[in-house]
């Protein structure tokens, strides 16, 4: 059901500026170098702290170069800061040996990507991700680690399984992503699509409540821009009208998972006699 009286073939254009892809070669080189450095690190070929600091300095230099190449606007600067923090946290997550340090790197990466989500005006998801990951997960992780871990480093934290295969797989995947993203003319211009094809809700007056306005074909571009999703209330309205069944199913899955976690974490009866 399409409640909107707009012809889907005649939608207003939102973003039509052309895009030139020029990042591909540099990006592929950076990804390849990062993979080689990770392998060298895992095989113990980078031993001295001097080389690690040199790598960190190289990373900082690349970050500085990235800063100079982006347009000097505040939001791009903040976005770049969050992105660099996220990548640095992820690198710390896979390179450190101590599980607590790895957990801190994970928290850095997730919190920074939450900052990026905030800047994409996904406020609810950013807050929920912060609560779920950085709050609950990290705290439970540290709790589990406290009772599970001995004081010294465990041997299974030091010896990894198949770093070569993992690096090859992940690097080829990331290079494919980078190549396809940096391809020019690959990201098409976008039209404002306000159709709701799966909606069960009918817009219109309802007894006892005032329904929010819906976009119409006769509106100007400025009036249509008011419907661009930038509010959490709009997300809530979309959740509980267009995707009501899916949201209810998600709540059911959460309930089942809670029950399963309670059953699994119970202490088994040791003495039956």
């Amino acid at each position, binding site marked *: 059901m399409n409640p909107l009286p707009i012809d889907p073939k005649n939608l207003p254009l939102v*973003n039509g*500026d052309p895009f030139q892809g020029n990042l591909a070669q540099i*990006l592929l080189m950076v990804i390849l170098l990062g993979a080689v450095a990770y392998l060298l690190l895992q095989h113990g070929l980078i031993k001295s702290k001097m080389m690690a600091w040199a790598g960190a300095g190289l990373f900082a230099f690349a970050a500085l170069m990235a800063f100079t190449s982006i347009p000097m606007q505040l939001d791009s600067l903040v*976005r*770049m800061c969050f*992105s660099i923090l*996220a*990548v640095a946290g*992820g690198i710390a*997550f*896979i390179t450190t040996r101590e*599980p607590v340090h*790895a*957990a801190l790197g*994970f928290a850095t*990466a*997730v919190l920074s*990507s939450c900052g*990026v*989500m905030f800047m994409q005006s*996904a406020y609810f998801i950013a807050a929920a*991700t912060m609560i*779920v*990951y950085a709050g*609950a*997960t990290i705290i439970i*992780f540290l709790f*589990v680690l406290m009772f*599970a871990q001995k004081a010294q480093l465990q*041997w*299974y*934290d030091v010896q990894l*399984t*198949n*770093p070569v*295969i*993992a690096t090859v797989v*992940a690097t080829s995947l*990331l290079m494919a*992503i*980078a190549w396809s*993203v940096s391809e020019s003319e690959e990201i098409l211009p*976008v039209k404002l*699509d306000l159709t709701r094809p799966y909606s069960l809700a009918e817009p219109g007056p309802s007894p006892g409540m005032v329904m929010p306005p819906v976009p119409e074909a006769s509106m100007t571009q400025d009036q249509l821009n008011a419907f661009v*999703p930038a509010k959490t209330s*709009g*997300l809530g309205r*979309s*959740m509980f009208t*267009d995707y009501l069944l*899916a*949201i209810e199913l*998600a709540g059911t*899955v*959460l309930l089942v*998972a809670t029950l399963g*976690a309670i059953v*699994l974490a119970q202490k088994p009866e*040791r003495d039956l*006699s």
Partner: protein
Amino acid sequence: MSHSEVQNLLLLGGILFAIGLIGFLTRRSLILMFLSLETMLSGVSLNLIVFSKFHQNYQGQILAVMVLTISACEAAIALAMVVSLYRRKATLDVQAWDDLSETILPKSTAGDYQDLEHEEHYPKLSPAGLDPLDRPVPSSMQASLDQDQKTSPIVSEVNQRA
């Protein structure tokens, strides 16, 4: 929202996914593998949110809510499983559970599996019947070779038939 911004953020999501993939394939601690999974899911939901902003509708954000829900469920179940597995074998190493996999596959790192420090807890059967050390067998049930003593009626009947 310019195209270069979309490009940068898609790349960031891809990098997070690749880091999580490397971590999941290489780490051996159960908890760190689980955190790698969460990193991958974070990259995916970032991707969805960027496309939601780019296309200017809520469908991507709804999908990200779904991803978040499933990852919260997975976090609860995985941590409960880690707790119960640790209770069983007293190690967080995932290769301690290699015998659950197919036996025809060669082990990735053979020989570095150490013996368990704790003893395993097997289920105990509840005792059946009477323990002769605890309770004396009633005299009517006792068998004896001595003819002079008072024998049980079954034994005396057998003796009479013989």
